[in-house]
């Protein structure tokens, strides 16, 4: 089992004819992902790695029965691409683009939510259910080296850290049910707490690992969900960026969204909230397998 995606997921790639879209499509097909359609306006009739390309999402869905989307679309067109995919009922929608105008990201997030679609991103490298499917660049050219099938659900603000966490689990002989890079932008389609609730409902997931950063309310919302008893499976949390406390508020390091403006944006505060709600706190990636083992 897994959350949101599995081997039956029929994937449509928006922006399939671009350079990253082509490479990722090839790697996903090699992994076994069922990519059934591509979309690039004006390029209908072509094909990429044997996948037929259509001019519009609606046409591609009608012809191929696609159920989910992954998007390699430049930031200024990314919101429209999400709206188009949501209007055709696709879910999840994996949106790779970063540095979107705030207003556009919000418009897309609202449109997807209203349509009942799960928007993963913005600024994500994708989602993987090891051994079943993957959408996006997650795992790179050799996903099996990093992501082994298992019982740990991973939700990370950082795509790169998804890979580090998965690899440390693999080395300890453990594995992942689904790993989702939820997006590093300030506006994401869904909250960390929602992903945790989906892992809670997934029979194959026994424990949950989350990776957070300064800024945003994600960790506070997750702590609240745990307090309310909506998430009862063991949660191991890593929240980085504590060093930012030594610098003036409003400084941004790394992800632009990882900016401290409010007291509750601070890494330490988030860690304390999650610990108080019962989460185990990892200082280092290498601590995560042991903490899970001890749950």
């Amino acid at each position, binding site marked *: 089992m897994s959350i949101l995606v599995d081997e039956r997921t029929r994937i449509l790639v928006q922006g399939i004819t671009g350079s990253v879209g082509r*490479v990722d499509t090839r790697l996903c097909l090699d992994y076994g992902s069922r990519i059934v359609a591509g979309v690039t306006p004006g390029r209908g009739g072509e094909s990429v790695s044997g996948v037929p390309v259509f001019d519009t999402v609606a046409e591609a869905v009608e012809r191929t029965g696609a159920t989910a989307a992954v998007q390699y679309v430049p930031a200024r067109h990314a919101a429209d691409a999400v709206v188009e995919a949501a209007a055709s009922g696709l879910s999840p929608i994996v949106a790779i683009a970063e540095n979107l105008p*705030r207003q556009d990201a919000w418009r897309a997030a609202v449109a997807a939510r*209203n349509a009942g679609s799960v928007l993963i991103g913005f600024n994500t490298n994708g989602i993987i259910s090891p051994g079943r499917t993957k959408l996006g660049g997650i795992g790179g050219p050799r996903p099996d080296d990093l992501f082994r099938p298992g019982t740990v659900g991973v939700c990370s603000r*950082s795509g790169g850290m998804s890979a*580090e966490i998965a690899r440390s689990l693999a080395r300890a002989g453990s594995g992942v049910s689904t790993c989702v890079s939820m997006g590093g932008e300030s*506006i*994401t389609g869904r909250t960390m707490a929602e992903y945790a609730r989906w892992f809670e409902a997934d029979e194959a997931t026994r424990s949950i690992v989350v990776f957070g950063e300064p800024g945003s309310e994600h960790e506070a919302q997750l702590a609240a969900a745990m307090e309310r008893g909506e998430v009862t499976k063991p949660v191991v949390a890593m929240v980085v*960026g504590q060093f930012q406390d030594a610098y003036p508020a409003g400084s941004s390091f790394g992800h632009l969204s*990882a900016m401290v403006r409010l007291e509750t944006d601070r*890494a330490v505060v988030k860690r304390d909230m999650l610990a108080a709600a019962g989460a185990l706190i990892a200082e280092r990636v290498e601590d995560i397998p042991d903490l899970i083992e001890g749950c």
Partner: protein
Amino acid sequence: MLEHESKARLARAGVRVPRGAVATTPEQAGSAARALDGEVFVKALVPANRRSKNNGVIGPIGRDAAARAAHELLGSRILGHRCRSVYVEEAVAVAGELYAAFSWGSRGPRVTASGAGGVDIESSGDALVHLDLGGSADLPQGGAEHLWRRALGDSRVPPALVDLTVSAAGVFFDDALLVELNPLARSADGSFTAVGALIEMDGNALFRHPDLRWRPDGLSEREAVVAEADRRLPGASVRYVELDGDTGLLVGGGGAGLYQHDLLVQAGVRPANHSDLGAGVSAEKLDVLIEAVLGHSNLSRLLVSFNILQLAPCDLIMERLLVGLDRMGDRDGPIPVVVRLEGLNADRARRLAAGRAGLRYLPPGASLGEAVDTLVRISR
């Protein structure tokens, strides 16, 4: 945006602001003041908040004193910024101060209001009333009225205040990240004026605003060079923040950079910078970032450590790093460099680095934490 730019933008949208003019000399300030009625304020145009508490605002003063006030401000340093121009503005007779702000949170757009204004109102918690605007990209009259009814604790909200708030919402929903009116002054005649106004525009949306120019306000020279290159050159984004330690960080992605910076600070190491680099970065951008990191005068060691690279090739980073190190030359022998680069083309990156004095490339399978530990050992 500087104050006069913020106010001009608000005025165009129908928000009443005090009359004023920009001056770059005391003489200009004097004639600007004579064109106004009554007393005036002379304000330093620097990109910083809390100017009035940091000698950046003089007034209210008589019109004849404006030139002298401008003389005092021009050329001085206020909150770290050299004052090159001043804003001469009429002093509005204030019967009461209010506060209104539009901002983005993780729940979307939000408007905040208070029946009390003033410099520290944002941090005074209790007095603030919030309204999340949800999925709509505007603030209807009814919403503004509801907000002020709660903020003022009075069911009768002046229509002029509602109109002003709706107009300010229009400015916010035109790609601003923040619109703050503080103080929002109520006059004895019942009118409302944005006496203090601050707009922060969304740098990611400047393509929709050809009239606005991106300005590297408050950045160091090297930070400005990297930020400018990031905007100008193609490829994934690069970021560079200068600090005053002695350990250079060429790190990424965003999460891995924050994580390693934490571990270094915990071990007592002081970074000379923070950096970040997106997947799919171009060689040109990489060169600019590396030059900035290596250019720091305190630099005595360097950590090059990235997430397992899933798209950007390791050999590209190594190639550009070696070029940068060569260009830097030997001041007192090569600086120690700890490298953790894994993923695409790591084998070639290793071959390129082989035999390089001072460079320690960690074996395959080494973690981000081990890279930091190695650097900490070297620095002791």
